[in-house]
């Protein structure tokens, strides 16, 4: 007697993950809310970068005109080109990404699970030869790639805008600083994507998961930095409190010596916010924050290692938490 067996061969591990990742990307482009937020972020970023590049271009034109006048006059003592720091045009992009980028990432994280729950496809996928870790890896990979491509496009546009509109070529160090800023932006978006993913997996009711994500976002991205800003003594007057008193940096440091505990608490509150870490390291890399202009990109990374860790730790924790929750969850099959 011949026994026929009908088994479905398990797909290769990498293949299943890649199929799910590709589906995540194509699904995102069918989500109207994601498209609205993405267009908003891209438009704002491009306007900010474009305006910044125009300013850089104007300064270069002014410099070239001065050089021409001096040369025509037969002068040989031509002043060096002004230090324009062209990558600082990304300053507003950082501010927009801190808000709209986080929102975009949360939309992706929430809909990634919610769409499957609503359509009942989570059970269907898990009834096929796809392991839970493959499913989750595919979702994370697809969305991480999508955010990466989006940010890389903004980075590339920045380089082109500085070159074409601003007429300035980036040095190797400036290009590395810009690339690292894009990497930090990706880590920042990934944090909020994983936050939404974690709550969507942890809390069965979709609405509750979304509201919890938003509450954590509010606290981490707005409340903590706001408390920090309020406790910043120098931040209380336009132009700076210490500057209004006629104090230089040394005088400010001396005055703050007696409020060391206060400054420690303020710093501690700010350290709890991924948004603050993102702003601090990005502004240092872009040379917007004073004191980092002369450092190389590697030195900036070393000096801002705390902020880098502050961006990586939430990603690792939320990713581990998501796997732990999803791999142990049995209710989807029931």
């Amino acid at each position, binding site marked *: 007697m011949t026994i026929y067996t009908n088994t479905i061969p398990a797909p290769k591990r990498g293949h299943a993950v890649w199929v799910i990742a590709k589906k995540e990307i194509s699904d995102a482009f069918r989500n109207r809310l994601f498209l609205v937020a993405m267009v908003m972020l891209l438009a704002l970023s491009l306007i900010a970068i474009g305006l910044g590049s125009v300013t850089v271009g104007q300064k270069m034109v002014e410099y070239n005109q001065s050089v021409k006048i001096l040369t025509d006059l037969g002068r040989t003592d031509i002043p060096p080109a002004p230090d324009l720091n062209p990558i600082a045009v990304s300053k*507003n992009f950082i501010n927009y990404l801190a808000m709209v980028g986080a929102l975009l990432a949360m939309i992706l994280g929430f809909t990634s699970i919610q769409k499957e729950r609503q359509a009942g496809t989570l059970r269907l996928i898990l009834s096929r030869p796809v392991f839970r870790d493959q499913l989750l890896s595919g979702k994370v990979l697809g969305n991480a790639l999508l955010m990466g491509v989006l940010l890389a496009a903004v980075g590339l546009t920045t380089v082109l805008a500085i070159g074409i509109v601003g007429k300035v070529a980036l040095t190797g160090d400036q290009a590395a600083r810009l690339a690292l800023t894009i990497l930090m932006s990706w880590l920042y978006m990934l944090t909020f994507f994983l936050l939404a993913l974690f709550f969507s997996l942890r809390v069965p009711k979709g609405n509750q998961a979304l509201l919890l994500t938003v*509450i954590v976002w*509010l606290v981490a991205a707005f409340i903590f930095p*706001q*408390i920090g800003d309020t406790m910043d003594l120098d931040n209380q007057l336009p*132009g700076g*409190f210490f500057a*209004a008193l006629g104090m230089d940096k040394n005088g400010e440091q001396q005055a703050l010596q*007696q409020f060391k505990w*206060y400054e420690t608490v303020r710093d501690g509150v700010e350290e709890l916010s991924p948004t603050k870490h993102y702003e601090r390291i990005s502004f240092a890399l872009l040379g917007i924050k004073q004191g980092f202009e002369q450092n190389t990109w590697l030195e900036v990374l070393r000096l801002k290692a705390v902020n880098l860790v502050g961006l990586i730790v939430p990603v690792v924790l939320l990713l581990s938490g998501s796997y732990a929750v999803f791999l142990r969850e049995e209710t989807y099959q029931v």
Partner: protein
Amino acid sequence: MKAAMTIARKEFQAAFRSQIFLTITILFLGLSILSVYIGSTTKQAEMRIYDETVTTLQAQGAAVLPAAPEIHTLTILANLIEYVSIVGAILAVILGYNTLIEEKESGGLKLILSRPVYRDQLLLGKLLGNSAVIALLLGIVFVFNLVLLVLVGGILPTMGEVARLLAFLGMAFSYMLIFLSLATFLSIHMKDSATVFLIALVFWTMSTFVIPQMADTFMVNSSVINGISGAVNQLPQETAFSRAVNYLSPTWYLRDIGGQLLQSAPGSGGLSAGTLAAHSLTALLALLAPSAALIAAGFASFLRNETLVLE
């Protein structure tokens, strides 16, 4: 009107049965307490540094002394402006985003509309109930802040200061009403409450961060030379264009009038009662206009929408 009041009462009670709503309410009230403490501590530290600086300069025989920092009683409560614009707005969205969708999903809407309740009464009741929740919360914030001002700050506010705080909370109510009416309007038109919430969140992000950030881009820096150190400070100054951009943001109106009422904006302490009243009236109208438009549009579409019963 009786039917509307019954629905309003039900909405009011339902809000306090939601765990998420209670969580964000506690966050809102907790932050308002914290703001008094932080505000008071920061201002005390500032005054201490200022006094020490003046003493040092006098000992050195300096002819010019820095002006004392402008610290008024209500400046201590200035953080409240940010907490209303951030947490308050989200709280209002949470109150409104599920208002009608929940009833649609549970079938309660059909049931209510099969009773002698008109559609306008139903919507009015829901808006009244949720507005009452906002008013109650702001009332608690008002009492909390006055008590804490006395207990933590050690300051007894004057009647004028109490009136300013009350006026600010009136502005806060109008501001939160915008987000409540937006979420309610969206919940009339949409089937999925999560989408309603996310769309409202996009609008809020635009109003609170994106538009003010864009306006900042169009500001110009003016150089101010410090009379003591001779150092040059850059101060951002509004331009006609940056102001025009800000007019698009309800949050900007709240921050602007909030700064004047709570005396945190430079020069706001010296504003006459008449000027302040005129500014407040303008801001109030600007804050009420979006709510009025959204509520009117909400009524117009809800009264004509037949699909709610047919679904």
